[in-house]
């Protein structure tokens, strides 16, 4: 297996697992959203790097160029980035509301308050 040649995938996996770990392990609701962002960013890189064609040029029609990189994954991931931004915005809006209702953004605090009722 060509380990060095697959370095983009190693970066993707590293980022993905870091983000995933933060989502699971952190008790802070804002940090969870940050982890989620990291997790999504790794998928963006997966898509962006898969569009690269060996020796391919920028996908703009020019004379003398025969091989182009694939622009479609980039277009796809633009949509996914927008979705990611919307998710982050909604998530943070919910955190603000939670903070107004509970006075805390720590999961443990919130659980304790719910159980004491």
């Amino acid at each position: 297996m060509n380990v060095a040649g697959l370095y983009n995938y190693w970066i993707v996996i590293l980022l993905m697992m870091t983000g995933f770990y933060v989502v699971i392990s952190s008790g802070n609701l804002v940090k969870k959203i940050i982890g989620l962002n990291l997790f999504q960013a790794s998928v963006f890189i997966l898509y962006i790097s898969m569009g690269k064609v060996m020796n391919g040029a920028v996908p703009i029609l020019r004379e003398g160029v025969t091989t182009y990189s694939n622009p479609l994954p980039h277009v796809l991931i633009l949509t996914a980035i927008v979705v990611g931004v919307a998710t982050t915005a909604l998530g943070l809006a919910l955190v603000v509301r939670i903070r107004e209702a509970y006075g805390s953004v720590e999961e443990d605090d919130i659980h304790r308050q719910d159980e004491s009722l």
Partner: protein
Amino acid sequence: MISAQLPALQVVVPLLAAPLCLVLHRPFAAWLLTFVVSGISLLVSVALLGQILEQGVIDYTFGGWAAPFGIAYHIDFANAYVLLIVTAISTVVSIFAKRSVASEIEAHSQGLFYTAWLLCLTGLLGITITGDAFNLFVFLEISSLSSYVLIAMGNDRKALTAAYQYLIMGTIGATFILIGIGLLYMLTGTLNMLDMAQRLVAVADSRTARTGFAFLTVGLGLKIALFPLHLWLPNAYAYAPSAVSAFLAATATKVAVYVLLRFMFSVFGIDFALGAMPLSTMLVVLGSVAVLSASTVAIFQHNLKRMLAYSSIAQIGYLVLGVSLATPAGLTATLLHLFNHALMKGALFLALGCIAWRLGSVRLGDLGGLGYRMPWTMGVFVIGGLSLIGLPLTAGFISKWYLVLAAVERGWWPVVLIIIAGSLLAVIYVWRVIETAYLGKTKEAVSGTEAPLSMLVPAWLLAIANLYFGMHTELSAGIASQAAMVLFGGQP
């Protein structure tokens, strides 16, 4: 002319109505628009089903771009059937929503509520109708984001944490689906599902295909709330506004199950999904555990919405058991239960919505003697409950019957036992409610008894549908078996 444009209208009408709803802002106008648009969507889906019955499949290309390059909608029996379920439930529940939402949500945010409702409907319809894998992801996120908003509008502060938890788990699920679609695109170079299916045949025996399949299955498992990925569901359904619980319980997980079926059968093909991958074994184990554990947990719930939410997880177990049988009969049972479960859960959640409207609570302890004070509401609950148990002459019986027959056909007797055990557990948790409502002590006299007609009528519509489809199965079972055949034929 317009009949050729129906596939686009199915999605575009609610999509355009959503911002209009935001502009209208007045609660009544927003509600009226939501109801009318749901009704139009229902008519469109009925018309589409009519076309499918005539010609089998509909292919619709956007902007005249041919299929593998442009985005194409591909409609056959399977998704026409799911479209019908989603639009019918949205229409019925939106009648109910008017009074229910007015009592649970402040007037100034009701316009926003209906906007989110229409967006959610758009997303669900888009997921179902599209023939393009990436398009599916986008619609999935539209429906998910709007359902987080809908859930967060519940009047308990726990609704916020429930929505947050759903957002985290839902986004992880959707990102897994995105990874799966990405890997499939790497392998096949196409996003059109039909095209993908053809190109996958040659490269199916690769690690990328298997990994992509695994990511898709786990991601969809989260969306379906398949045991053990169901943790977001009980709180989300318990604390959402009553109308939202009914709408989502009857449609959202159903659409996710449909997507799983579509990928398993139409894109990867049955040989790969249930032969080369050990999915059948996994599904039968997870489905059985879901049926038994969620039904048992439901027995101990005091909040009835939470009880029904756990019962939903158990019902998803039945759906998955049907798939794991890997026979046309099993798949028919799954699709049939998809339809029937939407009817029974819709009816039950609407009955709880009426109770919440009157009592402001859906705790079991507050229901004493309610059977005499709200006889019509409890009537709906009893019919829905009997259907959930699977008593003959109700819709629930038909789907359980098909499921048991399918399991017997494969000779999977333990599965038959699990289905029966699940029904017995359902008897316990439904009986607790009926016992309290009819035999329990009445609390102090509360003025006013029944819920208003605009809430009772939709609840009764679903209750009657439960009885009707328990006796006349031509429509539900007929289309379900056709859809199962289409999925099994390998032709999406």
